[in-house]
């Protein structure tokens, strides 16, 4: 492995490093294009056709169509790029982040109002916090933004 990744042992977290950035290049650049209102309109009019203009993998396109942000992030997406996609669909950062936990919007909002997710048990893979792989999904949401 070329890059040293001291962050690989954090549960429920993908660090946007050079490897992820390379993988997600066109997915993220597609998201950037949605900063222009005319592109947002074209995308919303025919999502599949707009996606097909970009050299993304079929998996990446499907993850976008599904509104599956966890999958988008695994495939190289970064949340600040994906935020343009969310905004285009009228979704807030809170809705986007919440969708990735498997909670409903109400469940996630309630967690935040109660002080947010606890750090205990969520520092290292293999602990028993609610962000650990064996405890997913966390709620009654669809896991999808759309």
């Amino acid at each position, binding site marked *: 492995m070329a890059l040293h990744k*001291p*962050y690989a042992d*954090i*549960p*429920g*977290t*993908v*660090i*946007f*490093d*050079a490897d992820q*950035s390379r993988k997600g*290049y066109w997915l*993220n*650049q597609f*998201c*950037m294009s*949605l*900063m*222009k*209102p005319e592109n*947002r309109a074209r995308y919303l009019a025919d999502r599949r056709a707009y996606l097909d203009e970009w050299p993304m993998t079929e998996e990446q396109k499907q993850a976008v169509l599904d509104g599956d*942000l*966890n999958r988008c*992030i695994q495939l190289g997406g*970064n*949340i*600040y*790029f994906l*935020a*343009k*996609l*969310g*905004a*285009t669909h009228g979704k*807030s*950062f*809170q809705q*986007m*982040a*919440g969708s*990735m*936990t*498997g909670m409903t919007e109400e469940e*996630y909002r309630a*967690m*935040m*109002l109660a*002080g*947010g*997710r606890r*750090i205990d048990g*969520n*520092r290292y893979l293999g602990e028993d916090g609610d*962000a*650990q*792989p064996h405890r*997913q*999904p*966390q709620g009654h949401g669809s896991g999808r933004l759309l």
Partner: protein
Amino acid sequence: MARITASVYTSHVPAIGAAIDHGKTHEPYWQPLFAGYEFSKQWLREHMPDVVFLVYNDHATAFSLELIPTFAIGTAARFPIADEGWGPRPVPEVVGHPELASHIAQSVIQDDFDLTIVNRMEVDHGLTVPLSLMCGQPTEWPFKVIPFAVNVVQYPVPSGRRCFALGQAIRRAVERFDEDLNVQIWGTGGMSHQLQGPRAGLINREWDNRFLDRLIDDPAGLAEVPHVEYVREAGSEGIELVMWLIARGAMADVAGGPKPRVAHRFYHVPASNTAVGHLILENAA
């Protein structure tokens, strides 16, 4: 001679900007947060700077994956407000200070900081939300702004140590500028938050408050904290806090002067996904 009179630290959560823009600041959800900035708005009116050197990060707005500067200094006369996907925020354009910005760029590049100089750049919520929090909704911002964008999006981001040293170089540069200017330096972003994955929504009050304590009393020690601790303890987007060390490094005590006065300290959870932290430190006059 120009001088740095104070530093201001604040989160720059986009939802805060939306709450201001849509007149929701008195709603029960938002009221406690904006109450924490009432002092700050008054303080700013009484300590109005000529120029704010505003350290923030671009959130994949001006900089896509085509080009990622570690440190970018805005030397333009004006900086338009970006459309981040909802249309541009309804706030005034940002007016720069090209002469001071170029002077600082020249000085810190000669001090071995490898800046990228930017003359055309739109600014996003990272820069405009702190302005709104501190100034409210004026028709023009009441001071000039030098935008200073730090890469905290694609790993590796600059280390805390590097940021702290850069702040010191910025202070030296400002003090070498001939014109008599009152300059504040603002550090923005953070505190604990994670916007992605099953760990989204992470908040770490204890770590955040320890960060505030150490930022005030032990910034050099705090600057040694490695990236991975920010990510592990304060969430993947908590890494933004390294930017606060740039502002802190520019304070007088780091160069052997007196300790800054803590004019204000505030902490609140939540704003959207995020813990909000806020500090105002004044240099002795």
